[in-house]
């Protein structure tokens, strides 16, 4: 509405609408670089903040078995590892309290070399917290000799 009125007014004074548009574009282009005022000699390096990443490691664990999952840490910080679910089947109501081994380590070949481990039952709090520098790590879940049968498990990993 405002542009229409401006164009009409300009036309009545013999200025073509496209000329008004061109003028506005020039003024805008001139105005934009001026933003920043007196600090034009300063440059600011962008700061990249790495927020926590959440990853879900789900699988099945056989009696005497183990499984691992690799993840990449981008900044130094804590990795919280939660054994969130252990169940004897996919059906609801089959949650198990059997203890499992839960560990953090580094991938080595096709394996995961453990550096920190706990024995835990399924819960919604992380029993394993590891301070990690940037790099590739792995979480291992394994039977500590208590599994009576195959189970499904879910592990939540929150890391930087």
């Amino acid at each position: 509405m405002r542009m229409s009125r401006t164009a009409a007014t300009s036309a009545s004074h013999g200025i073509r609408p496209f000329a008004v548009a061109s003028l506005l574009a020039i003024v805008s282009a001139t105005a934009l670089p001026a933003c920043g005022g007196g600090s034009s000699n300063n440059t600011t390096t962008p700061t990249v903040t790495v927020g926590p990443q959440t990853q879900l490691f789900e699988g099945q664990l056989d009696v005497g078995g183990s499984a691992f999952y690799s993840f990449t840490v981008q900044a130094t910080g804590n990795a919280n590892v939660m054994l969130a679910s252990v169940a004897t089947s996919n059906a609801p109501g089959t949650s198990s309290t059997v203890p499992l081994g839960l560990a953090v380590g580094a991938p080595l070949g096709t394996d995961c070399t453990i550096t920190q481990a706990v024995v835990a039952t399924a819960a919604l709090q992380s029993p394993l917290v590891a301070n990690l520098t940037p790099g590739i790590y792995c979480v291992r879940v394994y039977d500590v000799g208590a599994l009576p049968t195959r189970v499904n498990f879910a592990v939540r990993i929150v890391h930087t």
Partner: protein
Amino acid sequence: MLTLAFAGCGGNDSSTTAPSSPAPAAGTESFTATLAPGGTAIHQFNASATGTVSVTLTTTNPGSTLLGLGIGIPGGNIGGCDLTKTVQALPGSAAQLTASVEAGTYCAGAFDVGGVGRNGVLVTLSVAHP
């Protein structure tokens, strides 16, 4: 267009505003769903801090239907929820299921343990979280 072009000039104000999303807050969330025979009704919520989550099966219709209650994390299992802890419960005003949690996203809900008829059951649950 000019207004937009100049809107970014903040004069001497050197502060910047980072994009933000609503911070999770403690509270109680209620939800209602119809449970089919053999079905599940799952609700996701965010815990803002370490604390205790209380899940209450407040009502069922038909009344006094025995159901399973569960709590876990969002995942690939039951109704999109990997359950950590489950109980069987009748509706009531006191929490039938509690769990200690840390800050994060969780799920809780109800499931049929064999007592849901072919017409289903209308369930109302409340989840109180830190």
